[in-house]
């Protein structure tokens, strides 16, 4: 089965010839019928993004990465703006040597884990370690750009296109699912957006949504097969939890983490940690790559250990400190207050250079006294 790439676009940037390169190359407009190829690797791999860049071929040629705009958030189907799409496009076609193949949202279990596993060993492993539960890439077998969707060789599509390919044999069917969705659109359309959040795991759902294509068209109605009652109940709960005043709800507690000098931010769920140590280690792993040049190599474990130590030195040395912004908008040093209190008041995190952090500590102590 040949890799879907038609050629390395934009010249051989970096050392990652295959997967990481331009999503655009392989993405043929989704709205056309027939076989489509999609690049699900690289940053476009949370394919919700990648194939969103489907028709945005122009992106591949731009070199300047508008990385600040690429907030790493998994776009929900139909919810992303056009400029976001092009941003991601830029990203994917951008500097490959810096490419970390970071999944868009490391805490998005499904997408990331999948993308982790499908990342070619030839590329930097990047964030695999930050994803809980996937301490190493066990399956770095995909050395030649096999995509999960591409397995049957015909096309690397979503179920839609897979189905199309299969059905093409049977009868001259065109875009069957568009028939489906158009047929069901009147009743289904309004359901689609509400379902989208719950089906975020499903790459399919996320993947094909263009702002240009109607959201319903690319949705797989009724997949994953969960009763609407269940979906609705959980959706309402999480909404309520987010709105709980004062105390954070029992749900996830995502906060942005930025680091001076890093090209983009990350998000962590504070609920998955119960001590400062855990948070610190996780952040180290996440951001270590930014502090080390050219950490792309095959023997990642060894490298990382080296990297980790180096980073730890950096962090615990005078170079970097971890700070957070609290509810009042003040920047405080992390670690002064009990963990529970910290997660209740933390709105975002920032890894600052030590020199910038002078003067924070005293304020933190005062604040915590006032806040109890």
């Amino acid at each position, binding site marked *: 089965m040949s890799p879907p790439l038609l050629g390395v676009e934009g010249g051989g940037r970096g050392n990652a010839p295959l997967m990481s390169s331009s999503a655009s190359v392989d993405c043929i407009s989704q709205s056309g019928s027939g076989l489509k190829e999609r690049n699900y690797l690289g940053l476009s791999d949370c394919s919700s993004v990648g194939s969103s860049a489907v028709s945005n071929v122009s992106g591949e040629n731009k070199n300047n990465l508008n990385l600040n705009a690429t907030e790493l958030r998994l776009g929900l189907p139909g919810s992303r703006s056009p400029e976001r799409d092009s941003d991601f496009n830029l990203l994917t076609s951008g500097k490959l040597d810096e490419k970390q193949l970071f999944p868009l949202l490391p805490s998005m279990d499904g997408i990331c884990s999948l993308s982790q596993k499908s990342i070619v060993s030839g590329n930097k492993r990047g964030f695999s370690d930050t994803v809980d539960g996937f301490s190493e890439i066990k399956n770095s077998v995909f050395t030649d750009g096999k995509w999960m969707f591409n397995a049957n060789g015909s096309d690397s599509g979503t179920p839609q296109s897979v189905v199309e390919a299969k059905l093409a044999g049977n009868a001259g069917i065109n875009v069957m699912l568009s028939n489906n969705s158009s047929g*069901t659109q009147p009743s289904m359309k309004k359901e689609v957006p509400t379902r989208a959040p719950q089906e975020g795991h499903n790459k399919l759902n996320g993947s094909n949504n263009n702002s240009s294509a109607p959201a319903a068209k690319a949705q797989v109605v009724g997949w994953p097969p969960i009763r609407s009652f269940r979906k609705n109940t959980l959706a309402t709960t999480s909404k309520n939890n987010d709105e709980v005043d004062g105390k954070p709800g029992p749900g996830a507690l995502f906060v942005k983490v930025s680091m001076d000098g890093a090209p983009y931010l990350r998000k962590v769920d504070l609920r998955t940690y119960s001590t400062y140590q855990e948070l610190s280690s996780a952040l180290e792993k996440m951001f270590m790559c930014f502090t080390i040049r050219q950490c792309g190599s095959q023997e990642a474990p060894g490298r990382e250990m080296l990297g980790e130590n180096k980073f730890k030195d950096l962090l615990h040395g005078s170079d970097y400190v971890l700070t957070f912004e609290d509810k009042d908008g003040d920047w405080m040093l992390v670690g002064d207050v009990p963990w529970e209190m910290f997660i209740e008041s933390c709105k975002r995190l920032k890894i600052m250079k030590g020199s910038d952090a002078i003067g924070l500590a005293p304020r933190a102590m005062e604040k915590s006294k006032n806040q109890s």
Partner: protein
Amino acid sequence: MINYFPEEVLWHVFSFLTSHPDRNAASLVCKSWYNVERFSRGKVFIGNCYAISPERMISRFPRVRSLTLKGKPHFADFNLIPQDWGGNVYPWIVAMAKGSTNLEELRLKRMVVSDESLELLAKSFPNFKSLVLVSCEGFTTDGLAAIASNCRFLRELDLQENEVEDRRGQWLSCFPDSCTSLSSLNFACLKGEVNVAALERLVARCRNLKSLRLNHAVPPDALQKILAQAPQLVDLGADSFVHDPESETYNKLKNVMQKCSSIRSLSGFLDVNARCLPSIYPICINLTSLNLSYAPGIYSKELVKLIHKCKKLQRLWILDTIGDKGLGVVASTCKELQELRVFPSDLHVVGNVAVTEEGLVAISAGCPNLNSLLYFCQQMTNAALITVAKNCPNFIRFRLCTLNPTIPDAVTMQPLDEGFGAIVQSCKGLKRLSVSGLLTDQVFLYIGMYAEQLEMLSIAFAGDSDKGMLYVLNGCKKLKKLEIRDSPFGNMALLADTGKYETMRSLWMSSCGVTFGGCKTLAEKMPRLNVEIINEGDEMEGRPDDRQKVEKMYLYRTLVGPRKDAPDFVWTL
């Protein structure tokens, strides 16, 4: 010689026949057996409410006391069936009321139940004892009020995952003071407020109350008071749990829980602060059933701590936030586990964890008694499935759902044919199977060859050609329900063995390759099948072309011809 047995003897013998397949078989032996059986059958199960009419059911089974009805096809759960498709229970209740049936129990699944039906039900059957509604819709709390007010001997009111409109009518207060017979009350699916004081009084006077599942509107301090009144509870569901571990309520709850040593089954926790979970630790050791699939607020760590205490668990429903590691803990703790369901968690609460094939393998290794599985996972491998098949040959229900419906083996990128093949080969008692992931015709060859006991098969985005479906239809002799979506099976497969469908309850095919012409042909050939096309939108206007593909087809065997309540968009061919 058997024919000369006096009927009394047959009666006595038949009274030991409880399962309806057994009774069905007995009734086919000869006329006298048929007659004895039909007069002695008290529990009637009708898997498809359109297979028979209420009147015929009553005339065959005049002594029916308990009726179970199922309405919409299974895929209705996933929004594949439009509103107003049908499945209304009203005609059944009318017929039974007219026929003076001594109805005591009514169990409905995926049916439309109006308030009118409930009112008629409540007033027509003086001995009515048990109402169980699962995934139904169409009624409001007014209907429940009618039940509460009129059913003097009500023992069981069990509402599971229904869409109920809240009318704020204080339905709970409608239980008269004389009602002391309740043994099971489940209103967890109701969204609205209830009269908590009335609830407390009701619980206090129903000394036989064994199962109680409350909705979110019952606050924690009421929960604590209720539990104090009902330490005999065996099954508890509480959606609104304590938030503050420092509070007085929490302390009271902790104390009360310690006395509830009969609780074996726990569910709810929709709204909970995980730090308050220690209050239920004392009962964990006795739990055999735990449903935390609606508890997104309990994180993996706390989940694991909780499960670690539940050594006797036989049934566990959980969210995938538990992660592979958490499943490892389940595997090492819950040695008696028989049923596991892992549901995908909502996007908002997703952490860094998910479940993959690893979690499943761990479970299979640790829980050899596992016989029922529903597993939503990010990925799967053939190797894992083969291992699972080896470890757990006792599966009766095996439902695997990869969140990406066509994902191949995560390691080899091959289709998952071999994995599922191993499952069907090893699990000789498999009755229900749902497959997902990248699958070719090969998996259906395996299913046809090995799944001899299979009764229900769900297929989505699978197969390459008509051969796949044919393998199944030819091979699975006991197949009752087949539901297929988005798979390349067409007329050839549909029409190859039309007689097969009369041996089955129903066939659903959507987004497949069958055409209008094919369906028509089938309908013409088989008058005892209803071949229904669901036509939404403008796909088929007027006279559709025979070559046009049918989006949704549902066919089922029936003794009563095309149904009269089909809406406009359902065409019976």
